[in-house]
C-alpha cells in the first residue's frame, strides 16, 4: 500500500480533480458491495461536513455505476471520484477497502488505515479536524455506538481476473506488439488467417493470459532465451509465454517449455535441421524428475499421446515457437515430405517407478532429484511392438531387435532409436536381471546381418552403395556381420505407460551424428 502523490480522476459531475488539492486532504478508496465501506461512508461525510473548507474529503469509488448508488444511499455531498479504471487503486496497491490516507498541508501522508478500527478512525477524524483548523470542533460521530473493529473487504483491483488485467496493462512487463482485431473479427478465425496456428485452434494470447503465464517463471520477460532457427530470430521469455498460452499451457509448465526451447536451439540438437529435413523429423521431449508429478504430466495410461494437458501443450508450445518465432512453415523451410501427427506435439514423462533401471536423466549424468528435459529428433512415428509371450529378457530383446531391424528400411544402418518400454516389458528385463546394456547388446547382435544383405540391389534400392565394400576390405568382407546400430548409445531405453499389457513402442531417430544429437538439460525456474 503506497499513499498516492499525484493523480487525476473525474468526480460524479464529470469534473476532473487533480490530486493533491491545496491544503490538507482525507482520501478514501471504497466499493459499493462492502459492508465496512457502507458503515464508514457516513462517518467520512460527517468529517467532510465538520471540516468544511478547512480540509478536502475525497472518496474514490472502484466502479462508476456505484457512485450514484452510494450517493443516494448515504446522502453524500463530498466529492465521489470515479476509479472504475482502477488506476488509483493499482498505483496505491490497496488490497482492502475502505483504505484511508490523511495528508497535511505539505501533502505528507501522516496517517493511514484500512478496514474499520474505531481507535484509528477516531484518531484520523480528530487529526482531520486539527488540520482543518478546528481542533476543538465536533464531528458529531457517536463513536461509542460503532463496533470496535470490522475487517474491510477485498479491493476490486485484487479480484481474480481484474488483478491479471491490471498487471498486464500497467506492469510494463509486456513489450510485444499488440494486434488489433476489428469488432467483426472472430478471434479464432483471425488467428488461422494470420498463420499463427498448427492447424488446430489456439488460445488467444491476450495480455492478461500472457502476463499470468509469465508468473510461472522467475525469469525476466525480456530475457533472450535463444536464437530460433530457421530465421535465426531472438526469442524472449515473453515470446515463449505468448506461444505457450496459444498451445494451451499453464503457467507452471513455462519453465519446462523455456528449457525445451533452449535445448532445441543448441548446436548439438540443431532444430534447424530437424525441422527443415525432407525426412519429416520432429523434437520429442522426455521428462524426468519430480517435475513430472508437480505439473501433472502423464506417464501412465496413454502416456505417449492424447488426454493430458501438460504432455500435449508443452510439446505443442515448442512447435509453435519454432513456427511463429523461428519461421518454420510447412512448404517453406519446413520441407517434410510427409510429416506425421507426432509433429504436432510429442512429449511425455518417464514412468521411473516402473523401471528396473536408472532413469534416462540419471543415465545421462543427472541426479534422481533433478528436473530434467531431454530432446531427441525423431523422424519415425510411434510404432507398436507387441510381444505378449516372451517370459525372459532374451526372448523380449529378440522381438525388439526383429522389430527394429526394419526401421527406415531393412538394409540401411540406423542411428538413435527411442525404445519406450511398457512397465510389463520393462519388468521382464528386470526379473531376468538384464541391464540396459544387456538389452542393447542383444539388439545389436540380433540385428546384425552380412554386409552383402545391406547393399543396394536391383530388387531393392535401399541400403549401402556397393562401392562401400572396398572400405570393408573388398569381397572377402561380404559376409561380415554389420549391425543395424553403430553403437549401444544409439539405442535409447525409457519406460512409460501403464501396466496394462505387454506392448512397447519404438520411434526411429533422424540422422544422428553431426545432424542432431539427443540433448538434456535441467529445467530452470
Amino acid at each position, binding site marked *: 500500500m503506497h499513499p498516492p502523490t499525484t493523480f487525476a480522476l473525474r468526480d460524479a459531475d464529470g469534473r476532473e480533480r487533480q490530486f493533491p488539492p491545496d491544503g490538507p486532504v482525507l482520501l478514501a478508496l471504497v466499493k459499493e458491495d462492502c459492508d465496512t465501506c457502507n458503515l464508514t461512508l457516513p462517518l467520512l461525510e460527517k468529517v467532510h461536513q465538520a471540516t468544511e473548507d478547512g480540509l478536502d474529503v475525497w472518496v474514490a469509488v472502484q466502479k462508476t455505476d456505484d457512485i450514484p448508488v452510494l450517493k443516494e444511499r448515504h446522502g453524500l455531498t463530498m466529492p465521489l471520484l470515479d476509479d472504475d479504471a482502477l488506476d488509483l487503486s493499482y498505483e496505491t496497491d490497496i488490497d482492502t477497502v475502505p483504505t484511508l490516507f490523511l495528508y497535511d498541508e505539505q501533502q505528507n501522508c501522516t496517517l493511514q488505515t484500512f478496514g474499520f478500527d474505531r481507535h484509528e478512525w477516531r484518531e484520523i477524524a480528530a487529526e482531520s479536524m486539527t488540520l482543518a483548523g478546528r481542533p476543538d470542533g465536533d464531528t458529531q460521530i457517536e463513536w461509542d455506538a460503532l463496533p470496535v473493529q470490522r475487517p474491510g473487504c477485498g479491493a476490486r483491483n485484487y479480484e481474480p481476473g481484474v488483478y491479471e488485467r491490471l498487471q498486464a496493462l500497467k506492469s510494463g512487463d*509486456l513489450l*510485444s*506488439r*499488440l*494486434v*488489433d*482485431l476489428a*469488432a467483426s473479427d472472430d*478471434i479464432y478465425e483471425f*488467428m488461422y488467417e494470420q498463420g*499463427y496456428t498448427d492447424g488446430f485452434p489456439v488460445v*488467444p*494470447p*491476450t*495480455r492478461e493470459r*500472457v502476463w499470468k503465464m509469465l508468473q510461472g517463471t522467475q525469469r525476466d520477460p525480456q530475457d533472450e532465451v535463444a536464437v*530460433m532457427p530457421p*530465421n535465426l*530470430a*531472438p*526469442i524472449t521469455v*515473453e*515470446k515463449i509465454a*505468448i*506461444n505457450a498460452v*496459444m498451445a494451451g499451457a499453464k503457467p507452471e509448465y513455462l519453465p519446462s517449455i523455456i528449457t525445451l526451447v533452449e535445448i532445441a536451439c543448441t548446436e548439438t540438437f*540443431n532444430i*534447424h*535441421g530437424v525441422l*527443415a*529435413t*525432407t525426412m519429416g523429423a520432429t523434437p520429442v521431449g522426455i521428462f524426468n524428475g519430480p517435475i513430472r508429478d508437480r505439473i501433472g504430466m502423464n506417464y501412465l495410461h496413454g502416456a505417449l499421446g492424447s488426454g493430458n494437458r501438460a504432455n500435449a501443450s508443452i510439446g505443442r508450445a515448442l512447435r*509453435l515457437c519454432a513456427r*511463429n*518465432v*523461428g*519461421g518454420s512453415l510447412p512448404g517453406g523451410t519446413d*520441407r517434410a515430405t510427409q510429416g506425421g501427427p507426432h509433429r504436432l506435439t510429442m512429449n511425455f514423462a518417464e514412468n521411473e517407478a516402473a523401471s528396473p533401471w536408472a532413469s534416462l536423466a540419471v543415465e545421462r549424468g543427472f541426479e534422481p532429484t533433478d528436473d530434467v528435459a531431454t530432446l531427441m529428433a525423431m523422424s519415425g512415428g510411434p510404432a507398436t511392438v507387441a510381444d505378449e509371450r516372451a517370459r525372459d529378457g532374451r526372448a523380449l530383446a529378440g522381438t525388439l531387435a526383429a522389430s527394429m531391424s526394419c526401421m527406415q528400411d531393412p538394409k540401411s544402418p540406423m542411428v538413435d532409436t527411442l525404445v519406450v518400454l511398457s512397465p510389463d516389458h520393462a519388468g521382464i528385463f528386470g526379473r531376468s536381471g538384464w541391464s540396459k546394456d544387456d538389452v542393447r547388446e542383444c539388439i545389436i547382435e540380433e540385428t546384425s546381418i552380412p554386409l552383402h544383405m545391406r547393399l543396394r540391389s536391383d530388387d531393392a534400392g535401399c541400403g549401402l552403395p556397393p562401392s562401400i565394400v572396398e572400405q570393408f576390405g573388398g569381397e572377402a568382407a561380404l559376409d561380415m556381420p554389420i549391425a543395424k546400430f553403430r553403437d549401444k548409445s544409439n539405442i535409447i531405453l525409457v519406460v512409460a505407460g501403464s501396466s496394462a499389457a505387454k506392448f512397447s513402442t519404438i520411434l526411429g531417430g533422424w*540422422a544422428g551424428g*553431426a*545432424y*542432431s544429437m539427443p540433448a538434456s538439460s535441467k529445467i530452470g525456474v
Partner: protein
Amino acid sequence: MVTQILDPTDERVPIKRSLTPRPEALHGTIALLDISKPRGDKFLDRLEQLLHERAPGVETRRFMKPTVAKPAPEPIKQAILEECDFVIEALAD
C-alpha cells in the same frame, strides 16, 4: 470479446533484397556448392563438365557443406563471396 492479442511472431520486418541483375554472359569463376546430399557430387560433376565445354572462359571452384543439416559455415560463404562471381548450389532430393 477479445479485441487485442499479443503478436506471437518475431515481429521483424524482413529485409527486402532484390535479385542481382542477370548477366549477359558467364565470366570469371563459378562456385559449385555441394550441400552434402547423396549424388550432389554427380550432379555437379556433370554440370562442371558442361560448363567447361560450353563456356570455356570460365573457371569453376568446388565447395562442400560439412553437413546437409545445418546452414553453410560462414568461412564457406565468405570464400564464395570473395573468390567467385556466380554460385550454383546442388540441392538434392
